[in-house]
């Protein structure tokens, strides 16, 4: 028997159904539980289920005692598949169908005709029917499967040119969804490295993270569309529960690293690849962002610490530095490698233990791990409330150089690095 808050009704019904438990028993209390007093929560328990209108505890007791009657099982189709084609129709009606079926990001798409999909498929040596990955919106969902052709269909819809297809295929094979369903409203970030950047004319310079480059724009958009369609949907209130949503989702913050102007080694070299390899790296989170201009001589350390303290303590920082800012950090701190810079950030991202442990996200996701002995969290938990503790682990902190040197701006984006994969494997 499970109790949930009422805004999760559709999610609960969907998740129990796809896990083959249509008869699962549940009752609902009002949203939110978080932050309510004991008296307010007791009123929830004594009150009525806001969806059924029946007493909550009556539903709980019946849920534990009433035999299953098999009715909900009739709602399930156990053997499911997806047709290759959509039923023939006019262009206007097909655009409407794609929109109504939530297969788009609500912006106009290119209809995936056979010719367009074939042109996309021609840019990879992999067979159209090769299964290349599985994806889901979060760990409570079941994994959906997809082929090279399915990825190509979504790439066409996004307006991507065929030459981008190896990058898009590589993104799909990460299995990391750009439409993750978290109430925190995550988005993905994509960093491209290596020769492919120039081959498809990606932007790593002025305006790289803005809508001025066809490859940046459509590769990122394709990643979002393929995520929602290949994982079985992304529908608010059902398969997407981001409370506020996140505008970064429109193209998943997709850009190339400015390797030529960076004073440090490229990101993919830090993750086991060679400079001549083409790769794509995926990050998730991308909710909190802080920025400033320059690295000032007198108070640069304090400025960085202030920015780090202002970040969400649960999402580690990734530094996105214009080449000017990167060189300034070298001048100020002597960080002649990214690793030295990361080590300094690790040692200076500090917060009083009492404040750290009181963050709701830390309570939800870190505190339980600390109480059962997982390091380094267990040691942090022993700190006195006013003792300064480290907010992040060094391996969680990352640095990417991007920008056109119109000025020395830089920003910190709170996100979790997921993986780097080869683009060359998908040519």
């Amino acid at each position, binding site marked *: 028997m499970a109790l949930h808050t009422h805004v999760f009704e559709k999610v609960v019904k969907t998740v129990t159904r796809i896990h083959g438990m249509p008869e699962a028993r549940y009752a609902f209390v009002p949203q939110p539980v978080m932050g309510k007093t004991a008296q307010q929560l007791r009123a*929830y328990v004594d009150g009525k289920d806001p969806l059924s209108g029946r007493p909550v505890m009556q539903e709980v007791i019946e849920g534990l005692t009433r035999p299953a009657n098999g009715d909900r099982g009739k709602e399930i189709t156990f053997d499911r598949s997806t047709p290759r084609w959509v039923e023939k129709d006019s262009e206007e009606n097909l655009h409407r169908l794609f929109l109504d079926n939530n297969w788009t990001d609500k912006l106009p798409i290119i209809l995936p005709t056979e010719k367009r999909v074939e042109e996309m498929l021609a840019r990879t040596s992999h067979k159209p029917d090769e299964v290349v990955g599985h994806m889901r919106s979060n760990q409570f969902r079941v994994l959906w499967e997809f082929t090279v052709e399915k990825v190509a269909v979504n790439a066409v819809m996004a307006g991507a040119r065929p030459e981008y297809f190896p990058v898009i295929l590589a993104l799909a094979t990460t299995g990391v969804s750009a439409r993750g369903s978290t109430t925190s409203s995550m988005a993905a970030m994509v960093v491209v490295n290596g020769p492919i950047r120039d081959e498809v004319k990606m932007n790593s310079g002025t305006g790289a993270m803005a809508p001025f480059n066809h490859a940046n724009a459509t590769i990122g958009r394709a990643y979002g569309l393929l995520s929602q369609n290949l994982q079985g949907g992304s529908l608010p209130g059902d398969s997407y529960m981001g409370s506020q949503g996140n505008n970064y989702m429109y193209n998943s913050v997709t850009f190339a690293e400015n390797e030529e102007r960076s004073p440090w080694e490229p990101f993919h070299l830090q993750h086991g690849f060679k400079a001549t390899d083409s790769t794509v790296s995926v990050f998730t989170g991308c909710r909190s962002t802080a920025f400033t201009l320059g690295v000032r001589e007198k108070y640069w350390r304090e400025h960085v610490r202030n920015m780090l303290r202002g970040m969400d303590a649960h999402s580690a920082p990734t530094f996105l530095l214009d080449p000017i800012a990167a060189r300034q950090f070298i001048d100020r701190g002597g960080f002649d490698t990214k690793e030295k810079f990361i080590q300094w950030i690790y040692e200076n991202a500090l917060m009083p233990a009492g404040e750290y442990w009181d963050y709701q996200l830390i309570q939800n996701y870190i505190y339980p791990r600390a109480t059962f002995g997982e390091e380094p969290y267990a040691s942090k938990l022993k700190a006195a409330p006013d003792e300064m503790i480290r907010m992040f682990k060094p391996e969680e902190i990352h640095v990417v150089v991007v920008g056109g040197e119109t000025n020395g701006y830089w920003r910190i984006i709170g996100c979790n690095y997921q993986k780097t994969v080869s683009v060359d494997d998908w040519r």
Partner: protein
Amino acid sequence: MANQMNGSQKISVLNPVGYPPKITPKPMAPRLESLDGKTIYLVDPRFDDSGLFLRQVRDWFTEHMPSVTTRLVEMSSVYTKDDPKTWETIKANGDGAIIGVGH
């Protein structure tokens, strides 16, 4: 005119949706005939003050169904991780379980 004709012409396009897995039905645990004299575990997933909520459920049982023994337990880690140890404990020592509040 040509564009209007093309616009009404029926065309074929491919379906962008991936392939869902087959669903494997899982039977529910047998329901209890009554809760009288039974031990019910209250499982706290440690999310958004769920423990405080379950303490109110425990108090409700104490006041309204005193013959029911409740045991409030926390999941062993974050709610996103399966917790076989706790499930085994409940199977061995309990008659039923209530988990909440979950998303």
